[in-house]
C-alpha cells in the first residue's frame, strides 16, 4: 500500500490518522503544513504546487521507508497537495505512530524535513501586488510578473 501520496483534492486527515493505527503503538505524532498569508515580508494570496509526480511518489516512499529503518516507529504516512491552494488550506500532512513518544516526535520531524528537502514539488506564491514566483530554496522567490506573460 502506498504510504506517500500526492493529492489534487483535500486531504482526508481522519482517514490518514486511522491508517496509523497499530496495536503496539502507544501514540502518534502528526504534522500539518498550512498555507500562510505571508512570506519574506510579502502578502500571499494563494499558492500553486507543482510536482514531478512519478519521482515525487517514489522519493516520498523512500523517505517513509527510511524513517521506518531509522526510528522505532510502527507506521509512517505523508500526503502532499498539488494544484491551487487558498490561505489556510492543508498543504502537507505527515504522521507516524510509535510505541513511545520520543521516536514518534523525532520521526515525524525528520520526515517533513526530508520531504521539503528531497521531494520534487515546487511552490508558486501569488502575491497581493499581482506578481508571482516559484520558490527555490534558500526560499527566496524567482519572481516573474503575471502581467508580463
Amino acid at each position, binding site marked *: 500500500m502506498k504510504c506517500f501520496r500526492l493529492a489534487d483534492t483535500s486531504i482526508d486527515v481522519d482517514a490518514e490518522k486511522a491508517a496509523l493505527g497499530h496495536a503496539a503503538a502507544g501514540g502518534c505524532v502528526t504534522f500539518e503544513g498550512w498555507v500562510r498569508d505571508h512570506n519574506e515580508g510579502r502578502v500571499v494570496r494563494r499558492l500553486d504546487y*507543482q510536482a*514531478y509526480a512519478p*519521482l515525487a511518489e517514489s522519493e516520498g516512499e523512500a523517505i517513509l521507508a527510511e524513517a521506518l529503518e531509522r526510528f522505532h516507529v510502527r507506521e509512517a504516512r505523508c500526503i502532499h497537495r498539488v494544484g491551487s491552494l487558498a490561505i489556510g488550506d492543508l498543504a502537507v500532512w505527515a504522521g507516524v505512530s510509535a510505541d513511545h513518544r520520543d521516536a514518534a516526535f523525532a520521526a515525524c520531524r525528520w520526515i517533513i524535513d526530508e520531504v521539503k528537502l528531497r521531494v*520534487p*514539488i*515546487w511552490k508558486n506564491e501569488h502575491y497581493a501586488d499581482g506578481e508571482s514566483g516559484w*520558490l527555490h530554496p534558500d526560499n527566496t522567490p524567482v519572481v516573474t510578473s503575471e502581467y508580463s506573460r
Partner: protein
Amino acid sequence: MNYQMLYFASLADRAGRAEEVRDSAARTPRELYAEVAAAHDFTLAAERLRVAVNGAFVAWDHALADRDEVVFLPPVSGG
C-alpha cells in the same frame, strides 16, 4: 538522439513550455543542460539542479539513451 524533456517551476516559465522533444547530440545530462540552458535562457546553474532520467535521479555524467525522459529539477520547495 531524441530526448523527451519535461520542465517544472521556474524552468517551465523560462522555456515557455512544460515539455518538448529535443533532437540533440548531447550524450550526458551535463551536455544536454548546457544546450537547453542556452536555448531557453535558463539562469540556474547546473550546480543548483538535480537531474532525473526516466523517473529516477541520475548523475550528471549518466549515459543518455535515445527517447529517454530527461528532467532538470530546480531546487524544490514543497511543504
